[in-house]
C-alpha cells in the first residue's frame, strides 16, 4: 500500500508557547487556577474533618459493617434477625428500596399512561377528571401526600382480630397485607429459569422473524408466538415438576399472622403515594408524546394504504416513544429517589436502615456515603440505559 505523501498528510499539532496569547497556555492557566482553588477548598474541609473527628472521638472506616446490628426490621425479603450484621441489615434495606421502586414504576406507568390517554379523551367528563387529577397531585408535595395516605391507611384498617378477608389467603389489617406465596419447592428456581428462557426465546424468535420477513416478505405472528413462549415454558416446567400447588398461607397465630409474606402498611402507603404522585407526571409525558406526532404522519401512512394497527405500530408509536422515553426514564429515577421519603412513614428502606445504623454507630460519614453510593449506582445505571436508548433511536440529521 503506497504511503500518503507528506504534503497530503495532516500535520501534527503545533507546540505550545509560554504566553497568555497562546490558547493552550491560557487554557492550562485557567484550569490550574480553578482546580487549585477547588483543591484548596477540599484540603481545608478535609483537614477540619480529621481534626473534628479526632476531637469528638468518632470512629472511622467500615469495620462496623461486621458488627451485630441489634435492631429489627419489619419487612424483609431475605432472612434477617437482629443478631445479624449491619451489612446484612443494609442489604435488606437496599432490597426494600428496589422492591418499592420496581413496583412503583410498574404501577405508576400503567396508571400514568391511562391518565395521559384519558386527558386526550373525547369525553369531556373523563378528560376534565384526568386533568383535575394531574393538576392537583402535581402541585402538592409528595411528603404531604404520603402523610395523608399514611393517616388514611392506618386509621381505617381494622385490628388484627377483625382483619378483612377479601380473598382466600389474603388478610388486610393494621399489621398490613398478609398474602400467600408459593411454598418453598425445589422446582421454583427451575420455573423462574424457564420464564427467563421464555423471554430470551421470544426475543430470538422476533429477530429471526424480522430477518425472514426482510428476505421473503412473509410476516410472522411474533407477538402471539412470543407471548405463548413466555407463558408456556414456565407452565410446562411447573407441570413437569408434579404441579406443586402448595402455598405458604398466612394464619392468625396469637397477635399476628405467620407464614406467607406480610406487606406492612408503611409499604402500602409508600407504594400508593409514589404511584399516584408519579402517575400524574407520567400522564403529562404520555400526553405530550402523543400530541407530538403530527396528524400529517397518520394521514400520510393511511394514504399509503397501511391499516390502523400498522400505522400505530410503525409510524406513530416510534415517534411518540422518542418523545416519551427520555422524560419517562427521568421520572423513574425521580420515583426511585423519592422512595427515600420512606423515612417519613417508617418503611425500612436503605435510607431508614442506614439512618438507624449511623445513629447507633455514630459513623455519619460512612452511613451517608453508603446511601449516596447506592442511589448513585442506581441513577448512573438508569442514565446509562437512557443514553444508550437515545443514541439508538436518534434521528439522523444533516
Amino acid at each position, binding site marked *: 500500500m503506497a504511503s500518503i505523501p507528506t504534503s497530503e498528510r495532516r500535520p501534527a499539532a503545533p507546540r505550545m508557547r509560554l504566553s497568555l496569547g497562546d490558547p493552550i497556555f491560557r*487554557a492550562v492557566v*485557567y*484550569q490550574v487556577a*480553578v*482546580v487549585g482553588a*477547588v483543591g484548596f477548598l477540599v484540603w481545608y*474541609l478535609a483537614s*477540619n*474533618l480529621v*481534626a*473534628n*473527628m479526632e*476531637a469528638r472521638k468518632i470512629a472511622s472506616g467500615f469495620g462496623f459493617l461486621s458488627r451485630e446490628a441489634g435492631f429489627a426490621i419489619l419487612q424483609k425479603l431475605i432472612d434477617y434477625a437482629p443478631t445479624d450484621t449491619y451489612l446484612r441489615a443494609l442489604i435488606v434495606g437496599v432490597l426494600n428500596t428496589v422492591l418499592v421502586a420496581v413496583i412503583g414504576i410498574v404501577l405508576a406507568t400503567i396508571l400514568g399512561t391511562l391518565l395521559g390517554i384519558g386527558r386526550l379523551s*373525547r*369525553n*369531556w*367528563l*373523563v378528560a376534565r*377528571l384526568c386533568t383535575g387529577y394531574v*393538576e*392537583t397531585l*402535581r*402541585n*402538592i*408535595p*409528595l*411528603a*404531604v*401526600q404520603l*402523610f*395523608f395516605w*399514611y*393517616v*388514611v391507611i392506618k*386509621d381505617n384498617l381494622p385490628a388484627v382480630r377483625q382483619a378483612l378477608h377479601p380473598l382466600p389467603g389474603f388478610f388486610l389489617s393494621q399489621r398490613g397485607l398478609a398474602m400467600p406465596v408459593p411454598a418453598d419447592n425445589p422446582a421454583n428456581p427451575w420455573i423462574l429459569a424457564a420464564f427467563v428462557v421464555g423471554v430470551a426465546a421470544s426475543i430470538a424468535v422476533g429477530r429471526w422473524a424480522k430477518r425472514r420477513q426482510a428476505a421473503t416478505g412473509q410476516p410472522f405472528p411474533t407477538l402471539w408466538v412470543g407471548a405463548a413462549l413466555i407463558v408456556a415454558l414456565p407452565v410446562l416446567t411447573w407441570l413437569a415438576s408434579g404441579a406443586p400447588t402448595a402455598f405458604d398461607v398466612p394464619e392468625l397465630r396469637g397477635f399476628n399472622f405467620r407464614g406467607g409474606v406480610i406487606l406492612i402498611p408503611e409499604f402500602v402507603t409508600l407504594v400508593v403515594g409514589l404511584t399516584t404522585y408519579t402517575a400524574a407526571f407520567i400522564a403529562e409525558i404520555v400526553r405530550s408524546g402523543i400530541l407530538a406526532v403530527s396528524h400529517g404522519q397518520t394521514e400520510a401512512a393511511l394514504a399509503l394504504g397501511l391499516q390502523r394497527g400498522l400505522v400505530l405500530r410503525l409510524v406513530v408509536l416510534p415517534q411518540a416513544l422518542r418523545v416519551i422515553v427520555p422524560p419517562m426514564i427521568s421520572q423513574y429515577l425521580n420515583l426511585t*429517589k*423519592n422512595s*427515600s*421519603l420512606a*423515612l*417519613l412513614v417508617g418503611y425500612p428502606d436503605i*435510607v431508614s436502615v442506614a*439512618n438507624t445504623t*449511623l445513629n447507633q454507630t455514630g459513623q*455519619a*460519614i460512612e452511613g*451517608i456515603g453508603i*446511601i*449516596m453510593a447506592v*442511589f*448513585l449506582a*442506581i*441513577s*448512573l445505571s438508569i*442514565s446509562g440505559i437512557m443514553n444508550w436508548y437515545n443514541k439508538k433511536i436518534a434521528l439522523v440529521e444533516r
Partner: protein
Amino acid sequence: MSDAAASLNNRTAFGAVLGTRAGQWARSNLFSGWLNTAVTLVVAYLLAKAIFAVASWALFNAVWDVPDNQTQVCRDLHGIGACWALITHNYRFIFFGTYPYDEQWRPAIAVLIFIALYGASAMRRFWSIKLLYAWIAGLAAIGILMWGGIFGMPLIETDRWGGLPITLILATFGAVIAFPFGVFLALGRRSNLPAIKTLCVVYIELIRGVPLVSMLFMASVMLPLFLPQDLTINKLLRAQVAVIMFAAAYLAEVVRGGLQAIPKGQYEAANALGLTYWQGTWFIILPQALRIVIPPLVNTFIAMFKDTSLVSIIAIYDLLNAASGTINTEPAWRGFGMEAYLFVAMIYWIFCFSMSKYSQHVEADLSRAQKR
C-alpha cells in the same frame, strides 16, 4: 342528522334543549356514541356519589369550633364529619410555628412581602433594574422582620422560626443563590477546558443522582464536621446550604438546555465582531438562553418549593412539620391527621398551581412569538 330528524327535534321541547348550543356541545362531548354515553353516565354517577360523600364529611357534618380544647365532640364524629376546629384553633401554629405569639405580625408581613415579590416578578411590565432593587430591599426587609433586634423589635433566633415563612425562605433564598451558581456550572459543563468540564459534570451528576434527603442529612450531620471547631452554623442555615447545593445542579441542567438551543450563528457573529468569551456570553448568549428556559426554570422552582417539605427530617419546623406538630404533640388533637394534611395540602397547592399556571402562560407566549 337528516332533515326530518332535525325538524322533529326542533318541534319538541326536548329537541329544543338539544338544539341549543349547550345541548349540541353535550351531544358531541358527552353523548357522542353508545360507549361514550355509557362512560359519561357511569362516571357522572360515581362522581356525584363521591362529591356528596366528601361534601358531607367536609362541610355538612363538620365541626368548625370547639370550646377550649374539648375535642370530644370531634371524636364522636370521627369519620363522619371533619374536625376543622383543629385548624381554627391551631392555624397560627401551623402558619408561624413556635414564633412568639405577640410578634407574629412580623412573619405575617414577611409572607406578604414574598407574595408581592413573586407577583411583581411575574408581570413583564415590571421587568427592569427597579425589580432587582425591589428584591434586594424586600429580602432585606424580610430578614429584619424575622430576626428583629433593631427598630424596637425583640430579637428572635432562627430556632423559633417556623411554618410558612420557613418554607418561603428556604425556597426563595435557595433559588436566588443557586441560580448564578447554576449558570456557572452550565457554562463550565459546556466549556472546552477538560478540567473545568469534568468538575462541573461530576458535581451535577453526583447531586442529581442522590435524593435530597441524603443532602439534608449531609448538611445537618456532616457540615459541622467540615468546619473549624469554633465556627458553628445554625440548623436553618445548614438546611439552606443543602437546598442551594441541590438546586444549583438542577438549575444548571435547565440553563444548559437553553445554551444548547442558541444557534451556532450567534456565537459566530459574536466572535466575528471581536467580542471576548465573557462579553459574548453576557451580552448575547445568556440573555437569549435564559429567556427561552423560563418555563422549565419556573417548574424547577415549583419542585424546590415542594421539596422544602422534607426539612422535617432534620427537625426544622416548616409548614408541613408544623402541621404534623399540631396533631402529634397535644393529646387533645391526636388523630385528626386528615384535616391537618388537607389544609396544608391546600396551601401548597395554591402556591404551586399559581406558579405552574404562570409557567404555562409564559410558554404559550414564547411559542406564539416564535411562530411569527
